[in-house]
C-alpha cells in the first residue's frame, strides 16, 4: 500500500474532468472499487475517484467523506450516493449505490449459501475459526491506530468518552440507541466547554 501523497501535487496539473461521468461509468467505477476492496473500500474509492478518474480533487473528496463519515450508516455507501447524485442527480446516486453493493452482495450471498450447506464440515469450521481470530485482530489494530491521535494530543475528554462508550456497549451491553442519545450530546457539550477554555 503506497502512503498517501500530498493531495495538491497529484491534482495540480489537471482539473477534474469537465464531462460528468455517465450512469454506466458510475456503476462500473463503484463496482470495481467495491470488488477490489477487501476489508474496506475507502482506500480504493479514494484511488478511483481522485487519482484514476479525477472526478474530484483530494480536498473535495475529503470533505465529502467527512460528511458521510459523521452521518450515521455505512460510510462508503453514503459516499456512493452523495458522489453519484452530485454528477447525475438521483439516478446517479442509485447507479453508484447499485455498483457498490450489487456485485459484492452476489458474492457474499453465494458464500452464505455455501456456509449454510457446508458450515458443519470439520475442515471448514477450523479454517473459519482461524480466519475469525485474525479478522478480530485486524479490527483491534484499526481501533489502536485511530486511538493514537487522541493519545498524542493528550485529548483527555476524548479518551474519557471513548472509554465510557466502550464500557457501556462492550461490558455492560447496553442498547446502542440509548447509549448514543446520552453520549452524543454529552460529548459535544464537553468538547465545546474544553475548547472554549483552551482558546480563552
Amino acid at each position, binding site marked *: 500500500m503506497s502512503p498517501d501523497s500530498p493531495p495538491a501535487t497529484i491534482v495540480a496539473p489537471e482539473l477534474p474532468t469537465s464531462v460528468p461521468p455517465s450512469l454506466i461509468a458510475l456503476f462500473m467505477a463503484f463496482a470495481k472499487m467495491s470488488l477490489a476492496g477487501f476489508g474496506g473500500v475507502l482506500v480504493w474509492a479514494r484511488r478511483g475517484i481522485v487519482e484514476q478518474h479525477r472526478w474530484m480533487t483530494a480536498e473535495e473528496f475529503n470533505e465529502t467523506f467527512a460528511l458521510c463519515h459523521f452521518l450515521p450508516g455505512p460510510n462508503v455507501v453514503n459516499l456512493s450516493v452523495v458522489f453519484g447524485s452530485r454528477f447525475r442527480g438521483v439516478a446517479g446516486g442509485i447507479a453508484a449505490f447499485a455498483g457498490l453493493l450489487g456485485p*459484492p452482495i452476489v458474492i457474499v450471498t453465494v458464500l452464505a449459501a455455501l456456509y449454510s450447506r457446508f458450515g458443519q464440515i470439520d475442515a471448514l469450521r477450523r479454517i473459519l475459526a482461524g480466519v475469525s481470530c*485474525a479478522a478480530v485482530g485486524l479490527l483491534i489494530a484499526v481501533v489502536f491506530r485511530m486511538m493514537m491521535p487522541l493519545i498524542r494530543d493528550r485529548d483527555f475528554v476524548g479518551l474519557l468518552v471513548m472509554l465510557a462508550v466502550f464500557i457501556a456497549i462492550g461490558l455492560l451491553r447496553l442498547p446502542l440507541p440509548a447509549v448514543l442519545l446520552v453520549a452524543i450530546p454529552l460529548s459535544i457539550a464537553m468538547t465545546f466547554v474544553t475548547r472554549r477554555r483552551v482558546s480563552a
Partner: protein
Amino acid sequence: MSSENNPVLTLVWTFGLMSLFAVGGANAAIPEMYRVAVEVQHWMTDKQFADVFAISQLSPGPNVLIVTLIGYSVAGLGGALAATLAMCVPTAVLAYGVSRLLRRSAGWRWPAIVQAALVPLSIGLMGASGLILALSADRTWVAGLLTAATAALAFATRLNPLWLLLAGAFLGFAGVI
C-alpha cells in the same frame, strides 16, 4: 404485531432502525448486531456470529455486508436482500438530503466541534466490537494469541490484511487453533 411472525419484516425493522444509529459505520454497529442477533432474537449462536464476521471480512465489498449474511441466515435470499437494503437505504437517503442542503451553502463544513466529539465515540464503539468478537472467536489461549499477534502485526506494519486472514485460515486448517 405482524413482525413477530414474519422474519423479513423483523429484519427490515431491526436494521432500518439500526442504520440510523450506526455512527462510525458498520464495524461500530457490530455490538448492536450481536446484541440483537445473538442475545435478543436468537437468530444465531455466538460461534456462528464470529463465523459470519470472518466471512464478511474475507469477501470483497464494504464491511456492511455482514448484515447480508445475518439476513441470509434468518430468511434466505429474501432475508439477505431485505437486511442489506434496510441497513443502507435510510441513511443513503439521509446523506443525499443533507448533501443537497449543504451544497446550497457552499463551503459549509461539519463544525470542528462535532467532528472532535464524534471521533472518540466511534473509536469506543469499534473497541467494543473488538471485545465482543474476541470473546466469541477466541475460545482457547492459542486463538487469543493469534488475535493478539494479528493485531500487533497489522498495527506495526503495512502488510496487506488479506495475508493475515490467509495466515489465520492456514493455522486454523492445520488444527493449531
